[in-house]
């Protein structure tokens, strides 16, 4: 039985245009909406698979205010069994603070008799992209950690973790309990079935206090980069552009 904890973060959807709030100190997701990163969606998919095979449970955790329940429910809808929210304002928490708060929650759950064989996080959050919460968490929990996992399988108390590189795949074997940060690309995110959506609505959300005093993220300000001035030359429309396009390719010296 492998029990898995997956940490998911509510982030503004940034696949379109990014706008800042009036104070200029945070990305405003009110128009684009909020989501979790694809890395975390893949982590949830991996966790559901591992727990499902062994009769274990998946718990999802998010540090944030009431609204991050939306992301927790989205994870329950695709197969997570339980959800925990650490009640805090995520923007005031730096990556070290988030790791400390998650570690504190893991210990609190452990004291109550619930332990996690595997803790999964995203490799990097889609908004702040700090690339470190999982590694800091592993240090705080004194567990081994692999970053950039794309697939994970568990057998006999060990996890086989595979990560992509430029030339292929590298394979790790870790004793459990362990931590891994997940990178998209190894598995497909799961889509909710109707039954999952119904379960998500009914699943209670356990709320924990952060258990740490945040030191903050050091943020002094944000700015959105202005788009570069367009210097595009339109070579033509449809098939009529082919002659000119071929000529440009020859001028660029890329036609052999």
């Amino acid at each position, binding site marked *: 039985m492998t029990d898995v904890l997956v940490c998911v973060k509510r982030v503004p959807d*940034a*696949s*379109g245009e*990014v706008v800042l709030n009036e104070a200029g100190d945070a*990305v405003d997701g009110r128009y684009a909406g909020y989501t979790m990163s*694809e*890395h975390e969606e893949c982590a949830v998919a991996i966790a559901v698979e591992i727990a499902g095979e062994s009769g274990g449970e998946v718990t999802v955790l998010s540090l944030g205010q009431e609204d991050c329940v939306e992301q927790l429910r989205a994870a329950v809808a695709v197969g997570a069994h339980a959800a925990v929210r650490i009640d805090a304002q995520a923007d005031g928490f*730096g*990556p*070290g603070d988030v790791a400390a708060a998650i570690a504190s929650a893991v210990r609190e759950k452990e004291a109550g008799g619930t332990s996690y064989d595997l803790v999964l996080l995203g490799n*990097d959050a*889609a908004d702040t*992209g*700090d*690339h*470190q919460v999982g*590694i*800091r968490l592993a*240090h705080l929990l004194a567990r081994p*950690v692999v970053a*950039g996992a*794309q697939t994970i399988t568990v057998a006999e108390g060990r996890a086989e973790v595979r990560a992509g590189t*430029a*030339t*292929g*795949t*590298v*394979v*790790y*074997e*870790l*004793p459990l309990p362990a931590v891994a940060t997940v990178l*998209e*690309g190894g598995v497909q995110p799961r889509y909710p079935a109707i039954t999952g959506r119904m379960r998500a609505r009914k699943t209670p959300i356990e709320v924990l206090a952060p258990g740490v005093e945040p030191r903050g993220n*050091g*943020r002094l*300000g*944000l*700015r*959105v*980069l202005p*788009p570069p001035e367009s210097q*595009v*030359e*339109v*070579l*033509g429309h*449809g*098939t009529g*552009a*082919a002659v000119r*396009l*071929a000529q*440009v*390719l020859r001028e*660029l*010296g*890329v*036609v*052999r």
Partner: protein
Amino acid sequence: MSVLVLVEMEDPGQGEAGLSVVAEETLTFARGLPGEGVHAVLVGQVGQPGERVLAQCREQGVRTLFVSTDAQLERYAALAWARVVDAGLQVSGAAYLLGGGTPCGNEVLAHVAAIHDVPMAANVVHIVQLDPLEVERQVVGGAVLERIGLGGQLAVASVAGHAVAPAPSAEPTQPTVEQVAVELTPADLVAQVRRSEAREGGDTSALAGASVVVGVGRGVGGADRFAAAEALAERLGGSVGVSRVVTSLGWRPHHEQVGQTGSRISPDLYLACGISGAIQHWAGCSSSRTIIAVNTDEEAPMVTKARYAVIGDMHEVLPALLDELG
């Protein structure tokens, strides 16, 4: 007070292996920090560094190159590598630790930051002010820059790819090579690569090193509609690269993805077909020498950011182009 830079090797293709371009960029960036100079640390190479590495260090003004020739470290193990970097920090007394904004750079630096319980800034693009240190870093996939303070005993930061162009130092050095000895514990090596498997059907270094990349996005319309793009890539001796939507839909494998969470490419020509040009895609292709967009929408960001564009259906434009090229 000095700067220590974790440097990585290039995947040795042909000829003698050297430091990666990102390593040279990071060393160049490091010279913008104050103090008595730049040191480098190289892990995972068994044996003495070769002539090419030493020449690169000389050119970059590196004073000491710390190496560990421990055979246990040949296979990647982020925590064990972090121990070596940490030993380099102790010996050099460096107040700044930098690395490339690569998977390895970010992972090893995060371990060092965790060991010392100090902040780490990922994907820094430039220094705003030195005292107290403030930097700007890429967030939200490069769409936004965040200004943060990195005060304290030890400032740890990874430098985003292409943040600076690699440039030789005005004062080349005669680098000393120094062995760093570390006592590794079994715990340091638990998360070590056991084995590597080469990818069937080529590797992404082919995509990353291609002189022409034909980019394909959602506009292609389906997994079975890549023939024209593949034929064009073949005709131009290049590779096919794709957007994330294409890999998410399962039309192509992830290792072909270009962008923030895929490969960064810098070909002579990037021909982006049916790709809207979202910032996260742009992050991976913006350093192409010339970009040509083929898109039905003349207002797509890819079109306005490109040098040239053809407005039209890629399934009409590409076959016509192939005909024209003969």
